[in-house]
C-alpha cells in the first residue's frame, strides 16, 4: 500500500523513523535530505512560536536549554488547531512533569502567567466606564452594585512570587529573595497587557466580582480573609487598567 499522511506525519515528528518510501527526488532516488526540510520546518516553526509565547521562561532557562526542551515539547504536544496564538497551553503541565526542572517549582506558574498575557492580548475589546461614576455613587448603592469585568482581565494566584520573577526578567527589578506567594491581575488598558501585583485579599475581591457578586459581598469576603484588605489599591488597579466595563445598580436598596 502507498504510504499516506499518517506515515508522513509519524516520520515528520520522529527522526528515528525512515522516510515514507513514496518520496523521491527528480531522478527517482529516495528523498533523503529533501524530506528533512519538512522535519526542520515543523520543529523550528513550532519552537519559534514557543519562544514568542514564553519569553520569560526562555530567559529563566537560557536559550539553549529552552530550545532543547521545546524540541521535546513540540513532538509530545503538536498544536491541535491552526490558531498558533494559543499554542503552548500544555506547557504548565509539561513543566510540572519535566524532571530536569523539578528544582524550579515556580516555572509552571510562570508559564501560566505568559499564557494569560497572550489570552489578554487577544481578548475581546470592552469600553470602560467613567471612574467618576464609582467615585460619586452613594455608599449603599455602591455596595449593592455589580461590576462587569473586561474579558482582557486575567487573575492568577501562585504559591511562588511569580509577579516579582516576571518583573525581574522583564524590567530588571531585583529577583525576589523569599519564596512567598503572590497574586496578580493582568489588565489591558488599551492594547498591551500588563501584570499588576495585587495586595493581600485582592484576588478574593476580584474573583468575587468576576463571579458576579455584589461589590459589598466581594468586599466582605476580602476583609474576612484579610482584615486590613487594601480596597483603594485594588480598585485603583482595576480602574487604571480600564477593567471595569459596566456597573449595575438596579438592585440597590
Amino acid at each position, binding site marked *: 500500500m502507498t504510504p499516506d499522511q499518517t506515515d508522513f*506525519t509519524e516520520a515528520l515528528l520522529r527522526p528515528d523513523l525512515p522516510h515514507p518510501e513514496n518520496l523521491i527526488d527528480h531522478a527517482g532516488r529516495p528523498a533523503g535530505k529533501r524530506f528533512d526540510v519538512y522535519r526542520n520546518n515543523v520543529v523550528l516553526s513550532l519552537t519559534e512560536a514557543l519562544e514568542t509565547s514564553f519569553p520569560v521562561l526562555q530567559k529563566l532557562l537560557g536559550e539553549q536549554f529552552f530550545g532543547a526542551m521545546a524540541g521535546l515539547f513540540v513532538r509530545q504536544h503538536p498544536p491541535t488547531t491552526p490558531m*498558533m496564538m494559543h499554542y503552548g497551553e500544555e506547557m504548565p503541565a509539561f513543566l510540572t512533569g519535566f524532571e530536569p526542572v523539578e528544582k524550579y517549582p515556580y516555572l509552571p506558574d510562570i508559564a501560566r502567567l505568559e499564557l494569560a498575557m497572550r489570552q489578554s492580548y487577544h481578548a475581546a475589546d470592552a469600553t470602560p466606564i467613567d471612574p467618576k461614576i464609582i467615585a460619586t455613587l452613594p455608599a449603599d448603592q455602591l455596595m449593592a452594585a455589580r461590576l462587569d469585568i473586561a474579558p482582557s482581565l486575567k487573575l492568577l494566584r501562585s504559591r511562588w512570587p511569580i509577579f516579582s520573577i516576571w518583573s525581574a526578567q522583564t524590567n530588571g527589578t531585583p529577583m525576589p529573595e523569599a519564596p512567598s506567594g503572590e497574586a496578580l491581575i493582568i489588565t489591558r488598558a488599551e492594547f498591551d497587557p500588563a501584570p499588576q501585583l495585587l495586595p493581600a485579599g485582592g484576588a478574593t475581591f476580584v474573583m468575587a466580582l468576576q463571579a458576579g457578586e455584589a461589590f459589598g459581598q466581594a468586599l466582605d469576603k476580602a476583609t474576612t480573609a484579610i482584615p486590613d484588605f487594601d480596597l483603594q489599591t485594588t480598585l485603583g488597579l482595576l480602574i487604571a487598567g480600564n477593567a471595569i466595563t459596566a456597573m449595575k445598580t438596579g438592585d440597590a436598596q
Partner: protein
Amino acid sequence: MFDQSFEQLPKGCGVGYKPQHFADIMEGAGAVSWFEIHAENYMGDGGRPLAQLRHLAERYAMSVHGVGLSIGGEGDLDQDHLNRLKHLVGWLNPASFSEHLAWSTHETHFLNDLLPLPYNDKTVQRVSSHISQVQETVGRQMLLENPSNYLAFSDSDMSEIDFLKEVAKRSGCGLLLDVNNVFVSATNQKMNAVEYIDAFPLDLVGEIHLGGHDEDVDDHGDPLLIDSHDQPVVNQIWSLFAHTILRGGKKPVLIERDGNIPPWDELEGEAAQALDIMTNVKAAA
C-alpha cells in the same frame, strides 16, 4: 462592516502586512496599494491585531491568505476553523481570499507547515471537493497557490500544472501564482521555470506572489532551494516576474516577507520595483 469600494485587488503592488510597519504605513504607503494578511493571525476576539486591521481596511484593499486550512488533508476540513475563516472574511470583506495547495493538519495534529501532495486523480478529487466546501462556506471564490516542491511522489501521475487546471475546472477556484515557488520547485526538480510559466493558465491567475528563498544542497550535492520568505527578491525572480507579466498582462502582485523582516522602506522599495517592471514590460510588449 467595511464598505464595498474594494471589490477586487488593484493591479498594483501589495505587501504582506506586519504589525511593526503599522505606523509607517499610516503615514503613507508609497508604491503599495493593498495589503495581505495571514488569516490565522487575526482570529482572536479583539485587541491590537483587529484594531490595526480595521484601520488598514478603511484605507486599502485587503487580501486574506489562509495558511492553516489543510486543503490537501486526507481527513475532513476542520469545521471550527472553517467557521472562523467565514467569520473573518465576513467581517473584513476582503477583495481577495486565497489558500495553499498543501496539507498541514492530520487527525488532531496541526503541523504548522505546508506539506506536499502526490499529483493524481485521487488527490484532484479530494482537493476539489475541499475547495468547493470552502467556497460554499465562505461565500466567495478562492485562489489556490502553487507550492514550493522539495521532493516528488512515486505515486504522482500528472504534472502540477495539469493538476491545478483540473482542480480549477472542477471547483471553479482561481489560482495564485507564486513566482518564487516556481523558481524553487524548478531548481529543486531540474525543470525549466520559464517553460512552467509558459504552460501555466495565466488567465486563471488572480494574484502573483514574489519572495525570497534560502540555498542548500541535497545528499548528492544538487541545489536544494528552500522557500523561506526571509530574504529580498533576487534577480532571477524579478526576470521571471517580468516574463510572467509579458505573457499574462498586469496582475495584483505581492511582496511576501515573513522572516527577517526589514524596515518598511525596504519592502516599499521592492514594491516600487515590481510596479516599475509591470509598467515598463507592458509598455515594451
